[in-house]
């Protein structure tokens, strides 16, 4: 393969022409045109739901386009399955890793390509696996590209950043020279993201062309050679990072001027509401996830807990809401010791919880919007007399909340599964915030939502804070933390490594703390 030192060559290696893809009720890709030059890093930018992943799934053979064609090096490709894409040298690293947790790195890499991928015919089922040979190749590849991976490690035990490297080696093992990376930095610290960018530049120097999907504006400007912006299934334009800025890109993504930071007055915190003392919590596998955490949140302030997913935030939120047993330590809400209590008494003491996984914990998708809105309160006197539920009260409540929180639904009796992600989240927010509360715990509250919903929820959180409610915000999106928090605590490996006021916090410093780099003063 010819080495190319300049990052933009005019050879088009991959091209999508007029791609249209429909799903029931949704036009995911509308006549999309896209091309990739040899050796470039081409960013595909758009908010959640813009159609970026759909387009990539078409290029990778996971979906079949309704119309349009895909060309590799000028030749039209017939793509019936990922096998064909792989055969043409396309590799994809998905946002949610396509790795088998119980297999080793070697087994994951060899799966589907147990012999040389180019020979389609050698598909005999009873061929003996040659783990040693593949392990050797893996080690060679990882040295060649600077991607350190241990072939014998069990993938489920590996940290997320390493798993991502396994995914990349998996693609390279199949001789990929076109690499698609779908939201790769969602699970990385800023430092790990820098590491990834370094690897990407290495790869392009060796002739690999990269498509990089993201919704993060700062990254695109940092790493991309070209940017294509998608919105609502269409390509709205391309941009040159050297000539563009965040505001311009944001408005292309959303179609209107976007306020990138939330307007808020300075905080006026009063008494302490939540006090957490030396909390220890174990995760699902019995390992220590929260390792001696102490902090407090006052009424009228937002404490943001920053940190990459998987450092104990999930378990912390579950412990504070009664969904996970606490091993030792305690926490109080307005002086009431709630350690180890089940969810109902905790909620009764004035806690509202916007859960991380809205479809799993926050809603019963098969229930109506009305029933979901009384999910936590159905037994209260206002909704039931004795053991009998007063349906008319439930319905009145639903109508009131739908109006107040602008939930887009044809009626309160529609099943929650039919709502968009943003509206589902609004149902949860409406339910939780319409109670009398003292503390709001919001876990990843805007994950996977469109910009309009994100703006709305941010507004609500700040409004809560201004009303004197204590807010604990847990988020893996550093921008969200920086935008909303009055104080920021960084969580790493189950501990709070540092707490600062917002005005004293910088991105770089937070990033270092999130990565575990901690200077003792």
């Amino acid at each position: 393969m010819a080495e190319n030192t300049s990052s933009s060559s005019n050879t088009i290696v991959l091209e999508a022409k007029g791609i249209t893809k429909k799903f029931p009720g949704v036009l995911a890709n509308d006549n999309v045109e896209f091309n990739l030059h040899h050796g470039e890093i081409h960013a595909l930018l758009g908010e959640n739901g813009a159609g970026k992943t759909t387009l990539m799934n078409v290029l990778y053979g996971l979906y079949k386009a309704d119309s349009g064609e895909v060309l590799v090096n000028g030749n039209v490709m017939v793509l019936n399955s990922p096998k064909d894409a792989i055969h043409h040298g396309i590799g994809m690293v998905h946002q949610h890793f396509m790795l088998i947790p119980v297999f080793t790195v070697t087994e994951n890499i060899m799966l589907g390509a147990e012999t040389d991928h180019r020979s389609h015919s050698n598909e005999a089922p009873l061929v003996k696996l040659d783990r040693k040979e593949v392990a050797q190749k893996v080690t060679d590849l990882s040295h060649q590209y600077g991607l350190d991976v241990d072939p014998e490690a069990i993938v489920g035990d590996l940290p997320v950043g390493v798993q991502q490297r396994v995914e990349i080696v998996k693609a390279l093992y199949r001789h990929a020279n076109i690499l698609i990376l779908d939201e790769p930095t969602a699970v990385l610290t800023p430092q790990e993201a820098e590491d990834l960018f370094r690897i990407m530049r290495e790869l392009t120097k060796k002739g690999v062309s990269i498509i990089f999907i993201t919704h993060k504006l700062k990254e695109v400007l940092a790493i991309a050679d070209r940017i294509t912006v998608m919105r609502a299934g269409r390509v709205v334009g391309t941009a040159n990072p050297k000539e563009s800025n965040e505001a311009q890109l944001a408005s292309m993504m959303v179609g209107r001027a976007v306020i990138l930071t939330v307007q808020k007055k300075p905080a006026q915190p009063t008494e302490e509401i939540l006090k957490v003392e030396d909390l220890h919590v174990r995760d699902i596998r019995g390992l220590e996830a929260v390792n001696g955490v102490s902090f407090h949140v006052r009424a009228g302030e937002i404490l943001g807990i920053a940190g990459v997913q998987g450092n104990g935030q999930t378990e912390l939120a579950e412990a504070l809401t009664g969904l996970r047993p606490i091993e030792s330590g305690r926490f109080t809400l307005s002086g009431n010791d709630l350690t180890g209590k089940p969810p109902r008494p905790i909620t009764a003491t004035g806690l509202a919880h916007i859960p991380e996984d809205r479809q799993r914990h926050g809603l019963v998708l098969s229930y109506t919007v009305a029933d979901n809105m009384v999910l936590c309160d159905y037994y209260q006197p206002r909704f039931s007399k004795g053991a009998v539920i007063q349906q008319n009260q439930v319905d009145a409540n639903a109508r009131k909340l739908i109006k107040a929180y602008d939930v887009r639904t044809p009626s309160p009796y529609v099943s929650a599964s039919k709502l968009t992600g943003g509206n589902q989240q609004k149902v949860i927010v409406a339910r939780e915030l319409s109670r009398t509360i003292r503390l709001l715990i919001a876990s990843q509250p805007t994950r996977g939502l469109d910009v309009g919903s994100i703006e709305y929820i941010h507004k609500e959180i700040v409004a809560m804070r201004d009303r004197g409610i204590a807010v604990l915000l847990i988020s893996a999106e550093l921008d969200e933390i920086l935008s909303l928090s009055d104080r920021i605590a960084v969580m790493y490996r189950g501990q709070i490594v540092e707490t600062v006021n917002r005005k004293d916090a910088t991105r770089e410093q937070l990033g270092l703390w999130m990565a575990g780099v901690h200077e003792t003063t």
Partner: protein
Amino acid sequence: MDWRRFAVIALIIAIMFGTVVLVGFSQSSPLLIVTSMLATTIAVATPLTLGALSGIYCERSGVVNIGIEGMMLGAAFFGWLASIYMNTVFHMPGMLSLFIGVLAAILTGGLFALLHAMLSITFKVDQIIGGTVINILAVGITGFLNRQMFFGKGSVFGGQVPHSPGILPRIHIPFLADIPTFGRIFEQQPITIAALILVIVTHYVLFNTRWGLRTRAVGEHPRAADTVGINVIRMRYINVIIGGFLAGLGGAYFTLESISSFEPLMTNGRGFIALAAMIFGNWTPFGAWAAALVFGAAQALQINLQFFRTLIPPQWSFLQNSYVVGLAPYILTMLILTGLIGKTIPPAADGKPYEK
């Protein structure tokens, strides 16, 4: 297989063997008793082993199959029917008829499995409901045809059960079967021997071949397998059908190797016990086989206590009652499922239909 599980299995088997030795030692030597029970255990564990292997193929690829009981029942009937047909109507020699019967049983299992696969994979019916449908269908069809063909006037066999070609003969393994006393462990019938061989084969296939790796991938994370070009649907179909063949072979044991007649509902829950064996063995062939041996031992216990019933001392008279002793396998299954004897981890995508 971790040590705790292994130890528990060994302990339970030792207790069961020990009980019979204690009861019967005045009549037969302990060595004879243990050897005889071991031989019986291996034999009666056969349908459980095959059922468990069937479950392993299905579930390792991600399809829950509680219809193994129905598959075995259906295979038992149709295999028996085929052998009688060959023998009585086509006048084929006994051995050949039995062999064709086994083939018919295997095929029947495969056909039921095909139905289950279609329901679960293509129509995405809830897999437990699908398995229940198979079970009900098997009971209905075998009951109907059994009565129609053998007990109704105007049936093919004129209203009576014809003479069956018997059961498969014991095979005398050279050298090993010649050992005095112990040798009888090595005189087993073909399906029993086949089951043992299949345990080893399944282990090898599952953990050392391309097929096994892909199957396991499809059962753990089908989307990941899809993204590397594996045809998830095809793999699940084939694995379920292989499972059906194995269940069919297990069904053949009942009417072609154990006894030579068919009775409605004769599988008596063994298809479900096989599933418990599979779970306890953590979806591995050797683990499931060991668990199947425990259940086999429980059955051997029941048989032998009946044999020695006159020797049972009065304070243990409850042992004379076959109903009481017969509780053992079922209670054991429930105990095993509580997970007190070790946690079990099913394939991650077990039971979930794959949607693109």
